[in-house]
Each structure stands twice: as structure tokens, then as C-alpha cells.
């Protein structure tokens, strides 16, 4: 068998629990010696992915290889990986020394060697002379150091870290980040690190894997992920950003906020709807409105330490977030400029909603698990399967979930400068997307109404 230079290979991993799919067909390869971070909001499946690697859970389908060996169903104690847990998980019945020596004793390593290796591990995490302390007498940061020592002393091929710094305070977290990076360099083993903190991911990683809703959104270096987010979720999750609807007029020319801007992206075709991402630090703000590409009025200005964060309203109703070292007073008229290279154009993931449905009768169609009224469809017979399309703006959301024809829960909110783009998970598990000017909150329960004239129905060709 040819040994690849990938230490971990996940192929088509799916993990479902009785009530939901946590990982949906995830494939991922990790290079030897890499510092890989799995980043995503809570509930995106990142911890489950790590637990599959450690062996605490087994995948519903798919294959896991570690160092070329198939490990899909191998129990945790036989895997060449060690884990650092979020809540440390130190054994309270052992002292620091015995906690760290736990793995080595099980491997029946010689006593003298155990002592040497434990001492070296303690030195590595900066906890020399703590051998005989009771673990429960240590602070959170110290406990996490012991937990790291306990894992690395076994010289695993892969170290798995499950949000190891999440329980520490900010200052301690920053220090530990540097130490982890240093440890990774000197140990030379592969780190797989799970976090929901995008800054931590950008600081530590060689490679970042952004996950959402059980799917990998993007894999890349921190600079790639930050500068070239591949979709609006990644752009929104990593750092601050202005995400706007736009039209690619032709190569190197994009139109948004009713103005044309030069950019450097090509190959999207002509007059294609796209999303543009502009980082707040990439918008230049000046007092002289004459020379500017577009202008607006400052609405708010907040001091953030290094820079000021401002929100500027443009005359045609867009809101632009800007970071600048200079402060502009609210109410002030300002001009703004964006360099072509700072306009990042992304393919739109979707331009309208598409759902599958069944005709109930000539004027009713069943979609999203409910019966919706539609315009009369003379040519489609009753019970036929149909494709139903409707615009993002066609959906009306109601406060009371009883008021709508169907109902759903708001799962993701994306601000697009002049409107919100919502992802609504409906009652029967399908996602629909809604553009609205109203302010909703994440996880709000809403009723869903669609005007009959907005549903565009086409029959599915039967085989």
C-alpha cells in the first residue's frame, strides 16, 4: 500500500442521530504535521467530527483512515491519537504526576522512562515541580496545561483539541495560543483543533476548515479564508464584512448600490447576479465628498481601541460598515472609496427558492409539508410532482407562527447592507431563503405566507 502524506483521511463521513443529521457527507484530508482548525458556530458538527476521529462516536457511513490504516470502527484505546478536552477531564483521584503517567503506565513503559517523559512533558507546558499537586487544587489554566501534558506525553501521531481554551479568560487564552503554536512547532505532530473562535483559528492554524450545518463550507489557509471567502456564510463568520447583492456587468466590472465599480474578478459571465464582500477596513473614508466614488452620512462612530467602527448610510438606503483610524462624527457627510482589489466577488449560492411539491388540485399545491394556494394550473394534473420556485422577497413572515400557512425557525441571518437575507428551516426540515427589511432574531419561530401569484410551478417530467 502506498503511504500518502496525509495522516488523516475522511471519506464521505455521515453521522446521523435519531433526530438529526450532524455530519453530511464530509470528506477531509489532513497533512502530516499540519495545524488544522475546524471552525464553525455551535451545533455545526465540528465537535462530532473530532469525536469520530477520537473514536468516541462511530460514523453512520463513510471511512476514516489514520496514517493509512482504516480506523472507522476501531475503539478509542487502539487509536494513535490523544485528546485534550474542553473541560480538562483530569482524573480527580490521581495527582498531576499520575494523571500524566496514566497512558504510559497502561503501555507498561519502564518506570524510569515514565519519570523522564512526565518531567519533560511538564517542562514543556511550564508546570515543572507541580508533580505532586492535587489536580483539583490547580487553576483552570494549570489544569488545561496538565491535560495537554497528559496527551502529548504519549507521543500521539495526532493531537485532537476540543475547544481547549474556551473556558479560560482572554489574557490566559492569548498566552496559551502562543504556547500551543510553539508546542506544535517543536513536537512536529499533527494538531486538529476545534473552535468557534474565528480569531483563534486565524492565529493558530496552517489550514482552516469552516463548517456549518454539518457541511464543510471552505478549506484554506487563514489568509485565503479571510481574503477569499467562498460564500456569504464564510464571509460573515470570519471577521466583519459588508456583503451586498451585486451584478457582474462584465469581467472586471461589478455593479452594486446602483453604481459601477472596477474590480479584479473575471469569469462570472455578463450580467450575472453575484454577492460582493468588502471588509470594513478596506473602505476608505474621506471628508472631501467630491473625489469619492460614493458618499453617505455617518450614523454612528464607536471607538474600538485601535480603530473607530462607523456605520455610514448611503442616500439609496444601504448601510456600510467601516473601520478607520480617524473618527468621523455622526451626521457628517463623507465620501468613500474602495480599491478594485478589495472588492471580492462571490458566486451567488442561489438566486431564488426551489422546492419540490405535489399538486393537490388545480389551485392548490403541497410544498414544505403544507398546502399552499396557487394560481390555477390547468395543464397539470392532480397529484403530479412539481417544481415550485419563488423569489426571496415573495415570502412573508409573520410573528405568530400560527398565522402562516406553514411555519419555520430562523437559522441564519445575513445582513446585506440594505436588507436581511434569512435562512428559515421549515417545519418539515427544508430550508427556504427570505429577503426582508424587518428585523428578526436568530431562532425566532415565524409563520410563512406566500402569495399565490408568486409561486411559479413547473411539472417534473416523469420518467
Amino acid at each position, binding site marked *: 500500500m502506498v503511504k500518502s502524506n496525509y495522516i488523516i483521511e475522511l471519506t464521505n463521513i455521515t453521522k446521523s442521530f435519531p433526530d438529526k443529521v450532524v455530519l453530511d457527507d464530509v470528506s477531509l484530508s489532513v497533512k502530516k504535521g499540519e495545524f488544522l482548525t475546524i471552525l464553525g458556530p455551535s451545533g455545526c458538527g465540528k465537535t462530532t467530527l473530532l469525536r469520530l476521529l*477520537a*473514536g*468516541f462516536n462511530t460514523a453512520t457511513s463513510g471511512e476514516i483512515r489514520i496514517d493509512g490504516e482504516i480506523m472507522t470502527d476501531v*475503539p*478509542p*484505546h*487502539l487509536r494513535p*491519537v*490523544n*485528546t485534550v*478536552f474542553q*473541560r480538562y*477531564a*483530569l*482524573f*480527580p*483521584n490521581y495527582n498531576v504526576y499520575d494523571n500524566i503517567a*496514566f*497512558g504510559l503506565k*497502561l*503501555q507498561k513503559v519502564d518506570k524510569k522512562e515514565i519519570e523522564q517523559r512526565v518531567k519533560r512533558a511538564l517542562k514543556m507546558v511550564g508546570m515543572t515541580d507541580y508533580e505532586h499537586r492535587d489536580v483539583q487544587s490547580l487553576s483552570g489554566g494549570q489544569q488545561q496545561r496538565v491535560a495537554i501534558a*497528559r*496527551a502529548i506525553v*504519549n507521543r500521539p501521531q495526532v493531537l485532537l483539541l476540543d475547544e481547549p481554551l474556551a473556558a479560560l479568560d482572554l489574557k490566559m487564552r492569548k498566552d496559551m495560543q502562543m504556547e500551543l503554536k510553539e508546542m506544535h512547532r517543536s513536537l512536529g505532530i499533527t494538531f486538529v483543533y476545534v473552535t468557534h473562535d474565528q480569531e483563534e483559528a486565524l492565529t493558530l492554524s496552517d489550514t482552516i476548515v469552516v463548517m456549518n450545518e454539518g457541511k464543510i463550507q471552505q478549506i484554506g489557509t487563514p489568509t485565503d479564508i479571510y481574503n477569499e471567502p467562498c460564500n456569504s456564510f464564510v464571509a460573515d463568520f470570519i471577521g466583519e464584512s459588508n456583503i451586498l447583492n451585486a451584478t457582474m456587468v462584465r469581467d472586471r466590472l461589478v455593479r452594486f448600490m446602483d453604481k459601477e465599480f472596477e474590480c479584479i474578478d473575471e469569469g462570472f459571465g455578463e450580467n450575472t447576479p453575484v454577492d460582493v464582500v468588502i471588509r470594513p477596513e478596506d473602505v476608505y473614508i474621506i471628508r472631501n465628498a467630491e473625489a469619492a466614488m460614493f458618499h453617505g452620512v455617518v450614523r454612528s462612530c464607536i471607538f474600538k481601541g485601535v480603530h473607530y467602527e462607523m456605520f455610514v448610510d448611503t442616500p439609496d438606503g444601504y448601510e456600510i460598515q467601516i473601520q478607520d483610524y480617524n473618527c468621523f462624527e455622526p451626521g457628517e457627510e463623507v465620501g468613500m472609496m474602495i480599491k478594485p482589489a478589495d472588492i471580492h466577488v462571490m458566486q451567488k449560492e442561489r438566486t431564488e427558492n426551489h422546492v419540490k411539491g405535489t399538486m393537490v388540485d388545480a389551485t392548490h399545491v403541497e410544498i414544505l409539508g403544507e398546502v399552499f394556494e396557487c394560481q390555477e394550473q390547468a395543464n397539470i394534473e392532480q397529484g403530479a410532482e412539481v417544481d415550485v420556485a419563488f423569489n426571496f422577497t415573495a415570502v412573508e413572515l409573520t410573528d405568530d407562527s400560527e398565522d402562516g400557512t406553514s411555519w419555520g425557525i430562523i437559522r441564519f441571518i445575513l445582513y446585506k447592507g440594505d436588507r436581511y437575507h434569512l435562512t428559515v428551516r421549515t417545519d418539515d426540515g427544508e430550508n427556504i431563503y427570505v429577503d426582508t427589511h424587518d428585523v428578526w432574531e436568530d431562532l425566532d419561530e415565524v409563520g410563512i405566507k406566500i402569495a399565490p401569484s408568486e409561486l411559479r410551478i413547473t411539472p417534473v417530467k416523469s420518467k
Partner: protein
Amino acid sequence: MQSRFVKFFSRRRNWSIPYVLFLVVFVVVPLVLIMFYAFQSKDGGFSLENFQRFINQPEAANTFIYSIGIALITTIICILLGYPAAYVLARLNSSTARVVVMLFILPMWVNVLVRTLATVALFDFLKLPLGEGALIFGMVYNFLPFMIYPIYNVLQKMDRSLIEAAEDLGATPRQVFTRVVFPLSMPGIVSGVMMVFMPTISTFAIAELLTMNNIKLFGTTIQENINNGMWHYGAALSLIMLVIIGITSLFTDSEAEEAANDGGLL
């Protein structure tokens, strides 16, 4: 007048007066009386003759040793039966576990005498002889829930990530048990032992009923002496038993205290 009344009740420490009175009358005074009677001879003077009698009279001392033996056997059987039960219960999902734990505790709602009489009837029905075997069965039957519950409580609260950490560090399922789960469940076991061993030493009703008065336990001996008007000797025997129980609870030190706090029955 009224203000003094209000003032008296507004001081929180005054609320404890009824309880202090209760403790003095029903716990402290009887204990002092036991001490007093134990060191008193029949004619009223101070003496150690009651204790000398215990040492010189093999009958009472033998009963004492036999009682401790029975208590030990009962405790050990309770651990052997109770631990696996608690272990399985702790792994069940919580609603199922709650029902099963309830089933174990349900018999406790019935008076111990009723339960024991029912056991006698059961043995009769099955034509099993009453005696030592029946006695141990009865003791285990009566005290098993007191062993299961504290162990279940400790196991159920145990952080699952500790088990995962052990597996992750290379421990086989057996090693996970011997090196992590079992040591960490010690407080539950200690608490269970305290709740089984101590009361079993002084049981007498179960012994009387399940052995048709053929086997005497130490509790029975004390009861007989006091019933027959031998207050001084009975008091001395009670004092000896108290001291022994006191010593066992010393062995279980602070760890047990902790366990009793979070592992006690209900």
C-alpha cells in the same frame, strides 16, 4: 408586651429552641443515662462489673462476634449485588433509570416488620427452611436499596469525559473500570457501607422472625436484657455497640462525609 413577643420570634436562633429541647430529651439524656447505667453496679455504686461480665461471659461476646460476622456478610453481598445494579442503572437513560430506582426503593415504603413477615410467609410457601440462610436473605433484601442508591448516585453524576479520557489514553474497557470508574465510585460505596453495616449490627426483628428465635443477634441480646430488667448490663452492651459503630465511622473519615452529603438515600 407584644413587642417583646415579636422580638423573641424575630431572632432566628430562638427558632432552634424546640429542636434543641428535642435533642436533649430524646438523644443526649438517653445517651447520658446509658453511660450512667453502664458504669453502675446493681447496688448503685460505680463499677466496671457489667463490662467484666461481657468479657467473662462467652455467650454475649460470641453473639457480638457472630452479629458482626452477619453484618459483614450482608454488607459484602449488598456490595456484590448492588454495585452491578447501580452500574447498569447509571448507564440507562434517565427516565428508565428513575423508574427502576423507584422499584428498588418502593418496598421501603412498607414497614420493615411487615416486609419481614411477608418474607417468612414466602419461605413457608416455598417450603424453604428458616435459619441462617433466611436471615442473610432477609437482611440483604432489606438493606440492598441503601447500597444501590448511593453508588448509583455517584456513578450517575460521574463526568463522562473522564471515561472518554481514559479510553483515549489507551485504557481497555476493563482498565477504564478498575482505574477510573471504580476508584471514583468509592465515596458511594463507603456511603452505602455506612448505611448497611451499622444498622445491621443492631437489627433484631429480622433475626427473630426469620430464624424463629433460633439465632440471636446482638440487638436481640440487648433487647432481652433490658426487657428482663437488667438495665445495667443492657446499657453496657449498648455502649459497646455504640463504640464499635463509632470506630467504623472513623475509618470512613471525611470522604464518607462528602459521599453521605451527595450520595445519601433520597
